[in-house]
C-alpha cells in the first residue's frame, strides 16, 4: 500500500508568496523555498522571487507570448511564398530570410522550449515532493537572463541582424544573444535535473518518479549533453563572423544552417520527449486508470531521448548535413524514433479503452499530440528512401534511376510542423491539466478544445503541404528567385492556412491563460485529481509546497486515497 504523510489538501492555506524564511540547512543545500519580504502580488514579489512556482509561471507566460510571435512570423514567411514571383511583404531575399529565421528562433528557443522549461520548473518539484526547485535563485536568474537574451535576439533582427542581416554588428549581436538564450535554458535545466536527482521525497526512487517528471529529466539531461555542441558552433560562428571568414550576406546559408540544425529530422524529436511523458500522466488521470508497466514507460522514454539527443548532437556538429548512409547514425535515429512513440501509445492506450474517459481538453489534446507525433515520425521515414536506395545501388554496383533526395527541400519543414504541432498540443494538454495548480483556476474547456482542433488541423495542413511540396522541389529556405513547379503555389496556400490556424490556436491559449489569471474563466474548484504528489497539496500549492515532507513508496502515492480521483 502506498503511503503519504501529507495533510489533507482541504486543510491547507492558500499560496503565500511571502512565506517563512528558509532555514540555514535549506539555504546551504540550495533548496530555498518561496521567500520574499515583499507583500503578495507586488511587482517586487515577482521580480525578486525565488519561488519555483512564480518562475514557472513567468516562463510559461513569456514563452506563450514569444511562441505566438514566432508562429506569426512563420506565417508571414509562408504568406510570402504564396506568390513566388514577387516580394509582397519582404523587401528582398535577405529580409525574407530574416523573417523566416526569426520565426524559427522565436518558436523554438523563445516559445516551445521555454514553456516546457516553465512547466518543468513549476511541476517537477511538486511531483518529486520537494519544497522547492534546486538552486531556486539560480533558476530565477536563468529565467531573467533568458528574457534579456530573447529581447536582444529580437532587437538584433529589428536592427537588420541575424541570418541574412545587412548590419555586421547586429549579426554578431544575434549570435551572442542566441548564445545567452541557450546558456540560460541550460542553466534552468540543470536546476530541474538536480531537483529530480537530489531532492526527491523520502522513499521515491528514480524509477518511481512520475512519467512527466521522467520526461523532463530525460529532456534536461539530453539538452545538457546536446545544446553545448550548438554553443560550440555559436562560439565558432562568432569568431568566424567577427574576423570576416563567415560571410553574412554573400552566403547566408551557413548561419542559417547552424541555427536550423535543431529543426531537422531526427534532431527535432528532442522537444517531443517531455511531451510524451506528459501524455502518459494526462491519459492516466483522465481515464482514471493508470498506464501499464510504469518502469517500461520510463525505459522507453529514455530510449526515445537517447535516439533524439544523439541525432541532435550529430546535427549540430555536422551543420545539418543530409540524412545519408555516410552518417548512418542519423538514418538509424530516424528509423528507431518511431518505435518509442508506438510503444508509449500502446502502453498508455489501454487506459483509454478500459478507463472512464471524458472528453476534456487535456485528454483530447494529449491523444491528438500522440497521434500527430506518430504521423510525423512515420512521414519522416520517407527521408530514408534516398539513402536506402543509394545503399542498394552501392551494394549492387548497378545504377538505379531514382530521385528521392529530399535534403534542402521543404520536407524537413513539413515534419517539423507535425512535431511542433504535437508538442504544442502536449503543452495545451499539460497546461489545461495542471492549470488549477499553476494558476489556481481551471482554464475554459471549450476554448481549449477549439485551440486543440486548430493546432491539430493547422499542423496537418502545414506539415502535409510542405512534405508534398518537397517532392516538387520546393526549397527549405524560401528562395524567391527559383522557378517553382506547378502545384506548389496551392500547397503554399494550404501551408499558410495551416500556419494561420496554429497561430490562432496559440493566441487562444494565451488569451485563455490571461483570462484565468484575471479570474474571468474557469473555476477554483479542482476539476480532477491525480495520483501523483502534486495533487496532495493545495491549489495553488502553499509556500514550501507541502506542510510536511511527503514519504512515498510507489509511483502513484495517492492511489490508496479514496478521494484521490474525483
Amino acid at each position, binding site marked *: 500500500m502506498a503511503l503519504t504523510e501529507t495533510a489533507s489538501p482541504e486543510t491547507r492555506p492558500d499560496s503565500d508568496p511571502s512565506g517563512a524564511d528558509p532555514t540555514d540547512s535549506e539555504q546551504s543545500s540550495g533548496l530555498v523555498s518561496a521567500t520574499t519580504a515583499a507583500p503578495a502580488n507586488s511587482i517586487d514579489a515577482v521580480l525578486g522571487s525565488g519561488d519555483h512556482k512564480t518562475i514557472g509561471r513567468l516562463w510559461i507566460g513569456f514563452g506563450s507570448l514569444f511562441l505566438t510571435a514566432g508562429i506569426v512570423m512563420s506565417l508571414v514567411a509562408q504568406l510570402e511564398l504564396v506568390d513566388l514571383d514577387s516580394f509582397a511583404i519582404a523587401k528582398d531575399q535577405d529580409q525574407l530570410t530574416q523573417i523566416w529565421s526569426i520565426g524559427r528562433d522565436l518558436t523554438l528557443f523563445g516559445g516551445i522550449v521555454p514553456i516546457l522549461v516553465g512547466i518543468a520548473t513549476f511541476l517537477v518539484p511538486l511531483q518529486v515532493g520537494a519544497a522547492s526547485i534546486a538552486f531556486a535563485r539560480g533558476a530565477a536568474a536563468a529565467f531573467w537572463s533568458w528574457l534579456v537574451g530573447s529581447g536582444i535576439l529580437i532587437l538584433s533582427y529589428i536592427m537588420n541582424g541575424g541570418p541574412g542581416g545587412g548590419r555586421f554588428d547586429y549579426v554578431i549581436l544575434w549570435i551572442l544573444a542566441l548564445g545567452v538564450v541557450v546558456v540560460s535554458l541550460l542553466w534552468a535545466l*540543470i536546476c530541474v535535473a*538536480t531537483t529530480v536527482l*537530489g531532492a526527491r521525497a523520502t522513499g521515491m526512487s528514480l524509477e518511481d518518479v512520475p512519467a512527466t517528471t521522467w520526461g523532463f529529466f530525460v529532456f534536461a539531461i539530453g539538452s545538457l549533453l546536446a545544446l553545448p*555542441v550548438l554553443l560550440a558552433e555559436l*562560439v*565558432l560562428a562568432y569568431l568566424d563572423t567577427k*574576423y570576416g571568414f563567415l560571410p553574412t550576406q554573400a552566403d547566408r546559408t551557413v548561419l542559417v544552417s547552424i541555427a536550423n540544425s535543431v529543426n531537422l529530422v531526427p534532431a527535432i524529436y528532442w522537444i517531443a520527449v517531455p511531451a510524451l511523458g506528459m501524455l502518459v500522466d494526462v491519459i492516466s488521470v483522465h481515464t482514471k486508470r493508470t498506464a501499464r508497466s510504469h518502469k517500461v514507460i520510463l525505459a522507453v522514454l529514455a530510449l526515445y531521448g537517447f535516439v533524439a539527443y544523439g541525432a541532435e548532437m550529430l546535427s549540430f556538429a555536422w551543420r545539418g548535413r543530409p540524412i545519408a548512409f555516410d552518417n548512418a547514425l542519423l538514418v538509424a535515429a530516424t528509423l528507431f524514433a518511431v518505435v518509442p512513440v508506438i510503444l508509449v501509445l500502446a502502453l498508455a492506450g489501454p487506459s483509454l479503452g478500459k478507463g472512464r474517459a471524458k472528453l476534456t481538453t487535456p485528454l483530447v489534446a494529449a491523444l491528438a499530440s500522440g497521434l500527430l507525433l506518430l504521423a510525423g515520425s512515420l512521414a519522416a521515414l520517407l527521408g530514408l528512401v534516398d539513402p536506402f536506395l543509394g545503399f542498394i545501388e552501392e551494394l549492387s554496383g548497378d545504377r538505379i534511376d531514382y530521385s528521392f533526395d529530399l535534403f534542402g527541400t521543404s520536407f524537413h519543414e513539413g515534419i517539423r510542423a507535425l512535431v511542433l504541432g504535437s508538442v504544442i498540443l502536449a503543452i495545451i494538454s499539460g497546461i489545461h491539466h495542471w492549470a488549477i495548480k499553476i494558476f489556481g483556476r481551471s482554464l475554459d474547456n471549450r476554448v481549449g478544445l477549439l485551440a486543440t482542433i486548430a493546432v491539430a488541423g493547422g499542423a496537418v495542413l502545414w506539415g502535409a503541404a510542405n512534405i508534398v511540396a518537397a517532392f516538387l522541389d520546393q526549397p527549405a529556405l524560401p528562395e524567391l528567385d527559383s522557378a517553382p513547379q506547378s502545384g506548389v503555389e496551392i500547397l503554399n496556400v494550404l501551408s499558410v492556412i495551416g500556419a494561420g490556424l496554429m497561430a490562432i490556436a496559440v493566441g487562444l491559449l494565451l488569451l485563455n491563460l490571461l483570462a484565468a489569471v484575471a479570474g474571468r474563466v474557469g473555476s477554483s474548484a479542482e476539476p480532477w485529481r491525480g495520483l501523483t504528489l502534486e495533487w496532495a497539496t493545495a491549489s495553488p500549492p502553499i509556500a514550501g509546497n507541502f506542510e510536511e*515532507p511527503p514519504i512515498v513508496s510507489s509511483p502513484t502515492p495517492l492511489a490508496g486515497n479514496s478521494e484521490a480521483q474525483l
Partner: protein
Amino acid sequence: MTAISVRETIPAQLTAAPPARPRLLLIGTALASAATIMLMSGLLGIYLKTRADVIATGEQWLPSGVVIPLTQPNMMAVTLVLSILIMVWAVGSIGRDDRPNTYIALGLVLVMGVAYIAQTAFLLSLMDLGAADDSKAPLIYAVIGTHLAIVGAAMLYVGVIALRTLAGNYGSKDREGVYGAALFWYVTVALYMAVWYAVYITK
C-alpha cells in the same frame, strides 16, 4: 507479494530519522561539468575534423610563419596537474577541519589558475597568429579561448567556495562545496589535456 504499510510496521513512538542531506551542489556541479565537457568536445570535434579536411587537401594546417612552441604548453600542463594535487590537499584538509591548510590550498589553486592564464597569454604572443590573418585562426582561438573562459569560471567557483569556507560554511561534516569546486577544477584540467594534445602537440 503483499506490500506492508509503513504505519503497520513502525511503532508510533519512534520518530523517523531525518532524511539524508541532499548533495545538490555536487549534483549540479556534475551536470554543469558534463555540459562543459560537451562544449569542449564539440569544439575539438569541429577543430579536428576541419584540420583533417585541410591536411587531406595537401595544405599545412598552421599558417606559414606560425610556430607553436612546446615549452609553454608543457609548462601549462605541469601547472594544472600540480593544481590537482593541491586541490586534493584542500579536500583532505577540510575533511580534517584543518582550515588554515584549506585556505592555503585553495589560494594556491587560484594562483595556479592565474599562472595558467598568464602562460597562455605569453604563448599566444609567441605564436604571433593574428585572428584575422587566416581562416584557421578563429578556430584555434575558439578552442583556446573557450578553455580559458572555462578556467576563469572554475577560478570564480573556487574563489566563492574559498570565501564561503572562510565564513565557516564548510567543514568536516559538510564538504560539499569544496568537493563541487574540486570536481569542476579536475574537469577543467582534464579538458586542458585534450586541448594540449589536439592543438599544441599534434599542431
